[in-house]
């Protein structure tokens, strides 16, 4: 080629103008920096350019969706939890317990104007049209006429609700207006439907009908709130026959005849299944407004009034407590999830810079700064990020509605969640711009071979561990669960300690592991080509390996921790309830219970003597049947210091002097209530000679914080019936057969104790929901880790494909390559599984003893291994390994080997 086509060296050329003075204005004609770059094609076309890299769109869309889901779910979750707490409390009470109610006591006749005032107060406050209930505050006296000519009378309660007669079993019917009498009352007064009753001295009132006494019928939901009027559930009130008035005119007629106090209720029916905390509060406000309009004040003790009605303010307050108790642990969890999701957004920004490396490097080489390139990244990715945010917000709503706690949330909650998601989007885009800008700067401006910064060598995870240590010490000094007005609230430290501990430990362990990685991988590399390839890949990108390993360890650790504490807490609560009851249920009767084939099938018969004393100290004596006891009762070796079979054998053993062997259970575990082996106890007026056969730490059936003596019922002599005897049939199975077995003996049931009656379940919802949300965080972190894994595979795809292409030329088989991928990813993820499980186990061991929901009630927390969570984590790891390896292999299979070799990696 000709050399001298240009001017020869040294030839003078036209002189250039001298350099402009610093600060002097230059001649510029086009946009080139600052806002001007936005008019240039790489920026002006940016929103459309993203579509040239669908993988980047997917990465950003997914990352933004996860970010929005993580950030916006907390508010929705708390709102849903408040609604569910309300629903649970409402479901545990009478159907009308949540209905807004106003009530007023009256000893005067209920005029139409008063009726209208009550109704108008409710509807005027925006409440549905109420129905009216008149409940007795004082009895009236009715006089009948017996066949003998006498005039028997009775004190009765008069009740009115418009459709009450539709909810009784009608035995006979008379005139349309008057009083409906229960059959027993009609019989005792000697009257029938259509006959007249005397009210006071001069008035009469017709018997409108006779119905089956409600106490002899199964209680219908309609009567649930009025059960105190006909069933002795309170146990202390004098029950009077319940007489139903057909109309308010009848009630007024009664009041004209006798001084008679009634409470008037106006009750607005609502649908409690759709209640949320805010709608409940709105209803309470309306109820208060109705009271004000009625010219009355709401009573302070709504709950203690006629059972059920008008308890919405009480439920609302309790649900509010549960929700506010959840807020402390849930918000930090959500924040942690949001920060992790932000990392994924940052990774997506880095992925963008990787995928657009050519253009970024070219523009950077032409003097475009990182800010402009970061702006380009945002301009390209803002639309997919916004779509992802919207999808994430929708997903958060869907998840909360699908997985609960409740499908209902406060009406304003979705909008607030969208605002939070929008704020997270702004933060995410800022981070994305930062990462993209830094990567762009690294394309041309980072000095190659510069000294490694000191900060990079600092083990910053030690700061996390130090913070975790501080949290743990604070947790040990305080309480893991605080009961506020009966509502369990999980201490924030129960969440922050493990997150800090596991994050710090995961990074530290991974850092140490990676330091040892090359040596560990050296030997096997000589034996197995797939392993050799895998180990080379892992060691070649140590930093990426560290990040990925830590990212995979965290979700497993958090998930296993949450599952471990959830199951431990639930099992412990269950154990406390079972220890209290003895079995799953206890059918209690004051009548003697015999052991029969039916009772044997149902469970075991136990007799409890509540008024026993030992040396003047009150004790409880539990007389059991050793033959059937073990099969029925709750026994866990972890709370018991001795096997149950051994203890029961000791009860059966013969003893000297006719003394009855007894097990002595202290009031406080660890304290021995007796010093002597020979005991003499008093049971009412009778006495028994006992000998101590064992001192177990705990024993089922202990319901009072008193020492308890357990004896074989068959060896106990005749006991004074005034020893506070309660005969119980404990059962592990369903209650109905046990009830039938008791009734079949003619014994009356006065009470059934079951696990639900021990604890108010709603009060402990916060614990399970806290750990449930933590599990959701684990799932979210898992998603982030999977996203990270995909980005890891994508960003390393080019070098992996180049290596595969070269390897194929050297005889590498597809199967060996696939095995190497399985080995690479499997090693990473299985190591993460082992590390995560180990860290979770350590965290659970450190925390679970603190998580004693009711320390006064034994047993202490019983550690429960979350087997299902562990198996699930293992399966997920295997599935992800297989899918990710298949994905990477598929990408390698589609490679044009010649193209790769031509272009290079």
């Amino acid at each position, binding site marked *: *080629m000709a050399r001298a086509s*240009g*001017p020869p060296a040294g030839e003078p050329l036209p002189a*250039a103008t001298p*350099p402009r003075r610093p600060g*002097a204005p230059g001649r510029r*004609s086009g946009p080139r920096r600052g806002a001007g770059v936005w008019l240039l094609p790489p920026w002006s076309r940016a929103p459309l350019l993203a579509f040239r890299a669908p993988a980047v769109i997917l990465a950003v869309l997914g990352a933004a969706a996860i970010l929005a889901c993580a950030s916006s779910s907390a508010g929705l979750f708390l709102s849903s939890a408040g609604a569910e707490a309300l629903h649970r409390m409402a479901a545990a009470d009478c159907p009308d317990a949540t209905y807004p109610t106003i009530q007023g006591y009256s000893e005067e006749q209920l005029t139409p104007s008063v009726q209208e005032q009550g109704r108008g107060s409710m509807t005027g406050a925006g409440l549905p049209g109420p129905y009216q209930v008149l409940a007795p505050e004082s009895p009236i006296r009715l006089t009948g006429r017996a066949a003998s000519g006498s005039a028997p009378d009775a004190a009765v309660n008069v009740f009115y609700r418009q459709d009450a007669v539709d909810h009784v079993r009608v035995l006979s019917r008379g005139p349309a207006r008057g009083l409906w009498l229960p059959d027993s009352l009609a019989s005792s007064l000697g009257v029938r439907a259509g006959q007249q009753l005397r009210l006071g001295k001069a008035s009469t009132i017709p018997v409108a009908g006779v119905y089956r006494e409600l106490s002899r019928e199964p209680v219908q939901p309609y009567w649930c709130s009025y059960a105190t009027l006909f069933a002795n559930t309170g146990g202390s009130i004098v029950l009077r026959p319940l007489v139903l008035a057909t109309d308010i005119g009848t009630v007024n007629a009664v009041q004209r005849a006798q001084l008679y106090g009634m409470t008037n209720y106006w009750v607005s029916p609502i649908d409690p299944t759709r209640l949320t905390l805010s709608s409940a509060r709105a209803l309470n406000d309306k109820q208060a407004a109705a009271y004000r309009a009625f010219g009355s004040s709401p009573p302070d003790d709504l709950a203690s009034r006629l059972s059920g009605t008008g308890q919405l303010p009480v439920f609302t307050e309790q649900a509010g407590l549960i929700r506010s108790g959840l807020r402390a642990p849930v918000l930090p969890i959500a924040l942690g999830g949001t920060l992790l999701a932000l990392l994924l957004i940052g990774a997506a920004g880095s992925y963008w810079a990787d995928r657009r490396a050519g253009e970024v490097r070219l523009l950077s080489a032409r003097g475009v700064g990182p800010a402009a390139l970061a702006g380009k990244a945002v301009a390209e990715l803002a639309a997919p990020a916004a779509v992802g945010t919207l999808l994430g917000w929708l997903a958060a709503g869907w998840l909360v509605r699908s997985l609960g706690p409740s499908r209902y949330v406060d009406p304003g909650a979705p909008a607030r969640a969208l605002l939070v998601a929008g704020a997270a989007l702004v933060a995410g885009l800022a981070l994305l711009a930062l990462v993209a800008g830094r990567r762009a700067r690294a394309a041309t*401006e980072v000095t190659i*071979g510069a*000294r490694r910064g000191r900060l990079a060598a600092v083990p910053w995870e030690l700061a996390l561990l130090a913070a975790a240590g501080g949290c743990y010490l604070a947790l040990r000094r305080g309480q893991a669960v605080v009961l506020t007005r009966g509502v369990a609230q999980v201490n924030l430290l129960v969440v922050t300690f493990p997150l800090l501990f596991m994050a710090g430990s995961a990074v530290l362990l991974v850092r140490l592991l990676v330091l040892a990685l090359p040596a560990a991988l050296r030997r096997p590399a000589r034996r197995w080509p797939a392993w050799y390839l895998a180990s080379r890949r892992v060691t070649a990108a140590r930093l990426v390996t560290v990040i990925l390993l830590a990212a995979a360890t965290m979700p497993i650790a958090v998930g296993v921790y949450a599952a471990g504490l959830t199951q431990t807490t639930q099992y412990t609560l269950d154990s406390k309830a079972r220890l209290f009851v003895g079995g799953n249920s206890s059918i209690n009767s004051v009548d003697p219970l015999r052991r029969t084939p039916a009772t044997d099938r149902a469970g075991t018969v136990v007799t409890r003597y509540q008024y026993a004393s030992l040396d003047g100290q009150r004790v409880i004596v539990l007389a059991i049947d050793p033959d059937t006891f073990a099969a029925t009762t709750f026994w866990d070796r972890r709370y018991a210091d001795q096997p149950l079979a051994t203890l029961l054998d000791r009860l059966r053993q013969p003893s000297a002097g006719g003394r009855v062997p007894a097990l002595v259970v202290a009031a406080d575990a660890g304290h021995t209530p007796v010093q002597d082996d020979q005991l003499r106890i008093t049971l009412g007026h009778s006495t028994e000679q006992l000998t101590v056969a064992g001192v177990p730490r705990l024993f089922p059936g202990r319901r009072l914080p008193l020492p308890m003596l357990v004896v074989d019922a068959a060896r106990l002599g005749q006991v004074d019936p005034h020893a506070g005897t309660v005969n119980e049939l404990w059962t592990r199975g369903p209650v109905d057969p046990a009830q039938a077995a008791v009734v079949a003996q003619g014994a009356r049931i006065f009470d059934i104790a079951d696990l639900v009656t021990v604890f108010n379940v709603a009060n402990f919802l916060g614990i399970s929901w806290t750990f449930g949300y933590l599990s959701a965080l684990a799932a979210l972190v898992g998603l982030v880790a999977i996203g990270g894994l995909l980005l890891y595979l994508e960003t390393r795809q080019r070098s992996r494909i180049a290596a595969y292409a070269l390897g194929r030329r050297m005889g590498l088989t597809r199967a060996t390559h696939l095995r190497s991928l399985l080995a690479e990813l499997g090693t990473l993820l299985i190591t993460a599984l082992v590390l995560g499980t180990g860290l979770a186990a350590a965290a659970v061991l450190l925390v679970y003893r603190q998580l004693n929901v009711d320390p006064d009630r034994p047993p202490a927390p019983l550690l429960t291994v979350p087997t299902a969570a562990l198996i699930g984590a293992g399966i997920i790891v295997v599935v992800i390994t297989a899918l990710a390896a298949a994905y990477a292999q598929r990408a390698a299979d589609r490679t044009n080997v010649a193209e790769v070799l031509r272009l290079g990696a």
Partner: protein
Amino acid sequence: MEPDDFDWTAGPLGGSDGSGGPTGVRLAEPAAVCRTVHKTYMIGDKEIEALIDVDKEFPAGRVSTIVGPSGSGKSSLLRILACMDRPSSGSVRIGGHEVSSLGTRRRRALRRTAVGYVFQNPVDNLIEYLDATAQLKLAAKLRGRPAVPADLERLFDLLGLSHRASHLPVQLSGGEQQRLAFACAVIGRPAIVVADEPTAELDSASADRVLQAVHDLRAEGVAFLLSSHDPRVVATADHLLRLEHGRVVESW
């Protein structure tokens, strides 16, 4: 001096000032000067000396070639001359301005106005979604120059790309891509154009056309600094710098 205070007033390639050369560069003066340039890298804990006492002047309107075996320091020197990196010590002047001590932002400003860079791989020098005319316009505007149609046409004619003005990079051959890359590098008349093995990815005929284009463009008064292993590049160079183990072993 602020980053944008570098003002390389354009000649015919980017708005004429009548000087015939880039502002700040008298053609009798070298466009770039290296004085006792040292560059040291850290590989782990080990120091590697990439450049040792490099002294060289690169005249304007000339093609200078930097040659040497792999690892001799060619790319390090090019990065320093392209204002992408700084020397560990020594002085580097571009268009009479000392740049070795400039911060990142000022070097970036210099890259925008005074330096053109051509990557080895032709596709790396072009934006895939812009046609040839848009590539030139973008390059000019980034340099802060108007994209005068007449200048663009002249450049296309000079490089034999007139019939490709509306073509996307993917529709161009490797040689055409690389010639277009040089056109983008010289538009707006920078002081120097740095090219890292610009013919390495091209076949023989395409490489010849690219080198011809470079020689045609040097008449615009821009200093071309090409690193290469290609003997044809050496044969066409006005000046040569040979490096071995970071030291200058031949210079003319």
